């Protein structure tokens, strides 16, 4: 047991140090990248605030004066880092609302969507993968392969529209958009989940096929364990060691790159916030959003490591040997 706790402690300490480093690095990088972008930030911020009918030189000059955008770069960066150490993320340059409030709202939306999408992907893809692996090359396997190719080939935008047309517009089962009611999450999550389920099925199938051919599974069969118990205790658990890190990577992609699905379903998430922050040069929101994403990735990796430790039977065997 002590070996396992030591391993866990090591993981957490390493990830903790990593997150502090990531926070500083991401903030500085965001700041530098935004400064290198073409165009005058004061104009961009004014366009974000007042809309294209009202943005003009005077509005941009007023924004520049208000936000001190003509201060030297090191002063602006130093100010932000100082605030960061006091855990003050500041206010959005465009909406003037506290960044914590704003990014927190978008982050929550993204996490909800990613979690439900992953659940759909795991259930759909996992089940398809396990079924396909039962008889490699059999009809179910071939069907699963077709599914993998099909869902990977359909862009999420098209899949989303098809789902809206069928489930929302034709059958009237679910609302197409909306953040207010819980049912609003189903269609965007299903769009993402179906898209992901193909590769989840693929990875699960390969892992299960490999595990089934292993000595310990053959031994379990030899000692007369029922097929169901072999599957649950040995095959699924060992295949999960491969699958969980894969899902971790997919979760990161879900959190970062679902702008298209977010906009199709008018879902308020971090992707939307990031795109707008870049468009409007809203540095505090961009820094905070990137920071939240970076820390989220560290957290996800930690969770994957911990889950791996918990799932993987091998360290236990080492313990027994020790």
């Amino acid at each position: 047991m002590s070996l396992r706790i030591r391993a866990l402690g090591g993981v957490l300490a390493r990830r903790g140090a990593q997150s502090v480093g990531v926070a500083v690095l991401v903030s500085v990088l965001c700041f530098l990248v935004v400064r290198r972008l073409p165009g005058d930030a004061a104009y961009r911020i004014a366009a974000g605030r007042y809309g294209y009918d009202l943005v003009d030189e005077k509005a941009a000059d007023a924004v520049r004066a208000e936000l001190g955008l003509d201060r030297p770069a090191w002063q602006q960066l130093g100010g932000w880092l100082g605030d960061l150490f006091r855990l003050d993320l500041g206010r959005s340059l465009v909406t003037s609302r506290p960044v914590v409030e704003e990014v927190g709202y978008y982050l929550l939306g993204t996490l909800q969507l990613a979690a439900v999408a992953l659940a759909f992907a795991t259930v759909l893809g996992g089940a398809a993968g396990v079924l396909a692996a039962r008889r490699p090359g059999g009809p179910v396997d071939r069907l699963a392969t077709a599914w993998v190719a099909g869902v990977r080939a359909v862009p999420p935008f098209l899949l989303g529209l098809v789902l809206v047309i069928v489930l929302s517009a034709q059958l009237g089962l679910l609302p197409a958009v909306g953040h207010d009611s819980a049912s609003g999450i189903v269609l965007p999550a299903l769009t993402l989940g179906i898209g992901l389920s193909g590769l989840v099925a693929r990875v699960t199938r390969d892992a299960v096929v490999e595990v089934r051919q292993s000595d310990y599974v053959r031994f379990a069969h030899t000692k007369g364990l029922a097929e169901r118990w072999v599957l649950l205790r040995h095959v699924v658990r060992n295949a999960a060691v491969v699958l969980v890190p894969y899902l971790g990577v997919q979760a990161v992609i879900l959190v970062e790159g679902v702008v298209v699905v977010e906009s199709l379903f008018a879902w308020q998430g971090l992707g939307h916030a990031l795109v707008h922050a870049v468009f409007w040069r809203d540095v505090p929101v961009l820094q905070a959003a990137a920071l939240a994403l970076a820390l989220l990735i560290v957290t996800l990796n930690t969770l994957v490591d911990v889950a791996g430790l918990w799932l993987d039977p091998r360290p236990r065997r080492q313990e027994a040997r020790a």
Partner: protein
Amino acid sequence: MRRPLRLLGPAVVSAGLIGLTACSTGTGPTSSPDTLRIAGPFEVHSLDPAVDGEVFTRLQVAETLVTSDIDGELAPALATDWSSSSDHTEWTFDLVEGATFHDGTPVTPDTVIGALETAAAQEASPLAETPIEALRAQGSSVVVELAAPYLTLPAVLTHYSTAVLAPGSYDDAGRVTSVIGSGPYEVERVQLPASIRTTRFDGWRDAPPAIRNVSFQSVGRAETRALMAASDQADVVFGLEPAGRQRIETTAGVGLESSLQPRTILLKVNAGHPALADVRVRRALSLALDREAMAGAVLREEGLAATQLLPPSLDSWQADLEPLRHDREAARALLAEAGWAPGADGMLHRDGEPLRLDLLTYPDRAELPALATAIQAALADVGVAVDVEVANSSEIPAAQADDSLELALIAKHFALVSDPLIDVAAVFDPDGADWGVMNWRDPAVETAVEALLAGAPEDAAVEHRRAIVGTAQSQLPLIPVAWYRMNAAVSESVEGFVLDPLETSWRITDLRWAS
């Protein structure tokens, strides 16, 4: 028999998962039957009317002193009456009696003055342009003292940035924390940037509106909005694209409302550019454009092809001018006259320099990039090479400021406040306008604008307006391309809907449920 059953397992789990999330609230797509559901493309970025308050005046939560009626004429709102001193340097606005804010506090001249001071301090507000010297209360009226005559002040006060909020809306630092207005609807819940819910205000000074609750949802994608309208997930949907319009036209139970907006899609020209300074080149560019074909292909309505600068919805600005036309041969002839001759590559050159222009536009209105590429093709046809760049809208004023702009395709609104004169005067500012002329001035236009701003009598005003649009038509410092139609899908369960071309208000108080 065992295998099919096992296949059923995961299917049942997935279906259960979908069902569980779907049923967790039990509301489904339709909410309370007494709620008018509005969807539109606009996001709300601030609660402060002085910054981004149009949605709160459209939802009739916040009121301005003056508003505009459906014909664009001034109409009373928080002020019942207004008058000016004979030299137009002092305006008096009499406030309506018995108006209260949604928190129960009365609307007083001092709260109005506070709101106007906030708006005047925002450079983007049209009120910042007015020469206000002092604001003071006089009995139940507000007096605006001006440094110079300003006849169009009441029109400026229709702009949403001048909406009046209760003192309780602001925190100690002067930031708006909640929108407490005085309109017939009060805010129930706001979730920036996408959703707002309002409900009837019981203390409204006039007849209570028929619609009790209103919800507004911002939906970025036009495809999604069209599907919402077609499947009864929204009662009023603004901003439909051509494909969506066709879907609505074939859907039972939903009607399409449209009106011409006082907005013109036009090519802003840097008249200081070595090639574009020559009026013959500007005319040639105009002649090269097949506006009807472009309007038909991109806007799906040939009738939207512009024949002059100001759209027909602004009647008083319509002059009997020879309409802009398409004539490729005439365009080539004018360019040849200006010294541009075809080179070996078929493109025009003068003194070894090719005629190559940069065209800047922005994607906020989906039609603009499409029209920009159509213009690119049309101009290539007469030998003018155009590089199209789609960028942020703010790049246009920025490029104007550093004089790097050559051509820009913009959608210019000519009635941001109810009187187009203010926008026309801004567009033809002799020193250049970010959303108007660049390096172009004309004494006849300057005289006419000054006379109109000084309040010329109507028969003289007609002549002045004609002088402005006539000069614009012959000199083409701005090349009109198309007019702009806005539209909305409206459910048949709603009666009394009228689309306000100025978008001052969505006139929810005029709506009622169909029996």
